């Protein structure tokens, strides 16, 4: 594609992980990468200069929100969202469909598009694939997403297959409506719920369109993690190896490590910035709720190994006094949480480039979970040749499998 050049320059010799450079119109991003979410054209009180310093390569904007405020006319007049918000690196916009279905209970999906009641005036409106692309062309992000027929990952039955085929048809309409193919990339979304047959059909159908990159959608909606990773892995097995793969809505640290091992290159999630507002700081062992009294006299930084401005300067005791009270308290944790995600991705990339990703995975999982690791993590990694239950020659770390999907308490 003229607007995207994807250069895979290192492959893990054990897992499906790879390290790449993704040349976009505004920036050359390094993958695997995490993209912070800036719903309304800003990321939670953080200036674009701070975002650059924090090593963010691509940020996300939400088409549904930006479409109502400030609206496509103003964004076009401003010369796109990049200029409007003074961000000159990479940008990705979603289609607006997911927001519509999750925020507006009254959304009704027809072949034409997503019908919804405008929360401002109560009028029934329609978002079609053409309109979504129109909005995204106005926003001008480096990567746009097709409008897809979103069904909950918990849905079963014929509705899943209907949505899958409709999403393919909507992709064709989106491609036709796309007016700036030399400046913007359109990514299709693999659908098919938790049904391997439908996922396979969807991916197979989409790759015929020869898109610049592909997304794996319809996951991270509360499904069992055992089903989640299998759908991700099945998709990456079918999608072309010379194109980027984007797993939507994924952002927990263990998910990023596992999915990278399964061959995913791009992620986004509101979690790191949202949880900062409540005073939760991310660390490799889990998350610190700095509001808790136990941090009152704690003079350690959030994370000794983090070199973000917050960790270089402040103790947990100081942060304890200000989180959830001042906007600066929120900003300090947001800065750290973004830095945390970015450092994790850099560490993943370096481990892949130096072909020691399996060792990195073992270290990471030992730090995060200790002895007991969720079954889905163990099985996902076994599927790509990393067995956490067998002690390695160095540290002798061997994990015990547990059935919980998530970590119950930080591993401290």
């Amino acid at each position, binding site marked *: 594609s003229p607007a995207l050049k994807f250069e895979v320059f290192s492959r893990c010799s054990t897992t499906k992980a790879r390290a790449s450079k993704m040349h976009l119109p505004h920036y050359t991003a390094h993958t695997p990468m995490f993209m912070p979410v800036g719903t*309304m*054209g*800003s*990321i*939670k*009180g*953080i*200036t*674009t*200069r*701070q975002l650059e*310093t924090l090593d963010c390569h691509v940020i996300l904007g939400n088409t549904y*929100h930006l479409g109502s*405020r*400030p609206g496509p006319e*103003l964004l076009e*007049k*401003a010369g796109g969202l990049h200029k*409007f*918000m*003074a961000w000159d690196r990479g940008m990705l916009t979603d289609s607006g469909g997911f927001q519509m279905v999750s925020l507006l209970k009254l959304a009704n999906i027809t072949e034409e598009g997503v019908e919804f009641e405008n929360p401002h005036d109560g009028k029934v409106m329609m978002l079609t694939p053409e309109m979504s692309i129109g909005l995204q062309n106005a926003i001008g992000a480096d990567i746009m997403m097709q409008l897809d027929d979103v069904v909950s990952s918990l849905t079963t039955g014929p509705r899943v297959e209907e949505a899958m085929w409709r999403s393919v048809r909507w992709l064709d309409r989106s491609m036709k409506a796309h007016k700036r193919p030399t400046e913007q990339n359109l990514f299709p979304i693999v659908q098919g719920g938790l049904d391997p047959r439908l996922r396979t059909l969807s991916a197979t159908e989409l790759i015929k369109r020869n898109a610049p990159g592909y997304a794996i959608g319809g996951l991270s909606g509360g499904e069992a993690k055992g089903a989640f990773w299998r759908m991700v892995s099945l998709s990456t097995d079918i999608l072309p190896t010379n194109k980027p793969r984007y797993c939507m809505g994924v952002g927990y640290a263990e998910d990023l490590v596992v999915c990278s091992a399964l061959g995913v290159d791009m992620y986004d999630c509101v979690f790191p910035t949202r949880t900062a507002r409540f005073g939760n700081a991310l660390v490799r062992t889990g998350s610190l709720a700095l509001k808790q*009294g136990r941090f*009152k*006299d704690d*003079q350690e930084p959030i994370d000794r190994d983090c070199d973000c*401005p*917050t960790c270089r*300067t*402040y*103790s947990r*005791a*100081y942060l304890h*006094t*200000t989180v959830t*009270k*001042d*906007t*600066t*308290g*929120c*900003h*300090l944790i947001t*800065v750290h949480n973004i830095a945390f995600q970015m450092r994790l991705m850099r560490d993943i990339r370096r481990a892949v480039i130096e072909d020691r990703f399996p060792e990195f995975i073992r270290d990471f999982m030992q730090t995060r979970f200790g002895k007991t690791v969720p079954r889905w993590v163990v099985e996902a990694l076994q599927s790509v040749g990393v067995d956490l239950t067998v002690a390695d020659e160095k540290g002798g770390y061997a994990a015990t499998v547990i059935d919980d999907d998530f970590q119950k308490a930080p591993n401290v």
Partner: protein
Amino acid sequence: MTLRFELKGAISGAGDASGTTGARMGRLVLSRDGDQAGSAATADTSIDTPNYLKYTRHGLQPHMVREVAAELEGMPAATRVQLEDFLADELPDYGKLGDGMHEFIGLDRSELLVLDTLDPTVPGRTAKSSNTFMGIDSEGGTRRLTAEVFARVADQLKPDVVVPLADYVEEPHPSLTQGKRISKSVSRSCKWLEEYLSKRKHAAAVFAPVMGSHSTGLRDISAKMLAGLDEVAGYVFNDVSLDVAFEKKLQLVEHSLERLDASKPRYMAGASAPDSAIRAILRGIDLVDSSYPYAVTEQGFASTYVFGGDSAATGSAGHVDLWQESMFSDFGPLVEGCSCYTCRTHHRAYIHHLLMTKEMLSTVLLQMHNMHWYQRFFAAVRESVGRGRLQQDAERFFERYCSDAGCAAFGELETLGKQESSPTTKIQRKRHAEQAQ
């Protein structure tokens, strides 16, 4: 650590020759040489006066983390912190928390740190003091701060300047007219100051609160006591909660100044708005604080007021309202030609959008501009004092922005007092309520 104040002699055309009253220029110089054994001698920090102390919350300027505040140039290297911000929970054991408050709040060593007790933007106080403690309302309920605890905490925090506890009088108070309450406040404050001085180990410079409220007689007593103390390095006027016109407050301040040592610096809380600051400076105040630009930011305004120079510059409002609908598609900077980070990087339409969508970046960007603007204002005021023209320039300034009824252009601080925290959402709600009417 030594702190000295160099007064640049009497200024012709304003005030009296001794510098007791009337505008004056000076320089606060902080030396840290030999603070720590073996540490390299550090350069002196100096702050030209009249100037402001940077207003903070929990030790950080509102909305701006360190690396954001670092985008601002020319700011005075002086920060004020109020202890009450850290009282919501039980006081931490600051003795364990590294090397004093500079380290705790991430303040550069080169900065002068002033530790006060109360937030100057909060006028109404309900907590009652007694003979032995200062009552402070906090989120966690009323805190009782004794002189002994204050001395211990101040020792642990090692600020450069300490404003000791004082029994500030709050209005309206029924016994005020009889003067008993004021009399008590003077004697308590005096006792607490002496207790602090006798109990402390860390030798911070003491800026002592000048008490006496309405009563000139009691002001005399307070001033006389303070003038006799060598340990007192500067004076603080905190009549924020006094329910009298600002001009009347200044008369009371002036009355005290005549009885104090004119060679020492004077800080006045509650004189942060540009008109108040000018009036206070004209009476001989050297330092105020930057709570005003914060109040401007909370309203969703960007400052435009200009002191001296081109009088035709901006309108008479002193600010632009970024909530206005006309900002929707305004791709100009907040102020044409402004060199602040916000104006160099963003346009009005974006800030308007951030306010409308309740994004926290709105107040970050506005605060950067408003602080830049405040600093510019003080530079212009100092220049005017230096040329002996403050009185004339001030008159022109008041003509432009004020009327006989007062200075409505700079009323943001009053609005701030009535507002709850969490800025953008609250303002949004207020606006909606107004529009619905």
